[in-house]
């Protein structure tokens, strides 16, 4: 499972960081950084919640 962020859509609301800080980090430059592009399967539920809660629909999960 791979985390895909559309950075053209992302507006750094940081909701994903609140849900899964192990994967997402919004830094003081107000940009989102993906800390772990290939998170372990145990993170799937949190990642799916981040996908659903992103106000910009900027996060997707790729299976490859």
């Amino acid at each position, binding site marked *: 499972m791979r985390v895909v962020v559309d950075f053209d859509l992302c*507006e750094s*609301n*940081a*909701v994903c960081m609140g849900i899964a800080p192990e994967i997402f980090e*919004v*830094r*003081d430059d*107000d940009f989102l950084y993906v800390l772990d592009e290939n998170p372990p399967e145990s993170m799937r539920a949190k990642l799916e919640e981040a996908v659903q809660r992103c*106000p910009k*629909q900027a996060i997707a999960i790729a299976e490859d």
Partner: protein
Amino acid sequence: MTSTAVVIGASLAGMHAARTLRHEGHDGDIVVIDPDHFASYDRPPLSKQFLAEDLEPERILLPSAREDLGLDLRLGTRATALDLADRSVSLQHADGTLGLVSYDSLVIATGASARHLPGTAGVRGVHVVRTVADSLALRADLAAQPRRVVVIGAGFIGGEVAATCRGRGLEVTLVEAMPVPLERALGAEMGAVCAQVHRDHGVDVRLATGVDGLETTPDDDGTPLVTAVNLSDGTSVPADVVVVGIGVQVNTGWLEGSGLALDDGILCDETLLAAPGVVAAGDIARYHSRRFDRSLRVEHWEHAIAGGEAAARRLLAEQRGDAPEVFDPVPWFWSDQYDRKIQLAGRPEATDVARVVHGSTEEFRFVTMYGRAGRLVGVLGMNRPRHVIQLRGMVEEGASFDEACARAEAM
């Protein structure tokens, strides 16, 4: 167990309820009813990107509308009455024909409608922003190169529309009845900061000013067309387009006499249950929050998702005989205006202590903490998303105000 779930309202809360029912074990029919003819869409862009750019409505569909959930989606259909004893909802279809749908479990998510300014029905050039149709109509008027836009109401929708109009290069007057905008949501001091953001972007901000009425002229086919807004201070502001953002009223009219308890929303218990087999979610649900010791009805985007999910789980718990979960998340929302991102976690009130703990209001980049009886009850950020999301956890914990401020200052 095969049973029929009916969801009234195909917007954010209703769709998340339907999605959760399907994902978490409901294998019977799920009927979703909504009077809007467009499929389920996301509302936040309606006052921002959708208004600023020529996006197709398909671009703002909700993800759940693209997902195959096996829903029986009936758009253009309005719920007109609820019969709790018969477990049925009366319907009116777009062509005027009547119908009835029976349910085993019911989710009510009919949300709210934009308040209109009295006496403006049928006046061309006057808009509200709540639906795709509203936003398309306003967008068409803005694209016709109006000279002046007057926005009535400096709440979040009014503020976003004002910012979008300035982004389109239009002259904007922002009229607010209260002495400070957003005072109820953010307190007087922070509301004043938000007003200053608009002034700095060239908006003519008129506070403590009511609207006495509109001036109109008949257009080519005799329809009244707005030309000016008459204000309570005796002045008149020329206007080609007027946008009214004075709040919403809940869509509970169809539930009058149903037996559900109504009081500015549907009165639910702490688990969003309104009656046996009936739950409510989204803007329409009023519930007691233990966290804030208040009766709450929250109109935020994320709360609609959380409420829809919780309401669906409440029904599933009822069917399975499981213990229900209390619904009491910390409200959170954002508002994008110009290059500023305003975010609020919690539920501050105008009488709370407000302390700026990071950055400064002069540079419009700051964090403000709200305290009540020694507890942290809210975090406001302007262009500080990381801080708000990290400090939201301290609101969840009901942290001590001083400790939370100390931690925020060290961030």
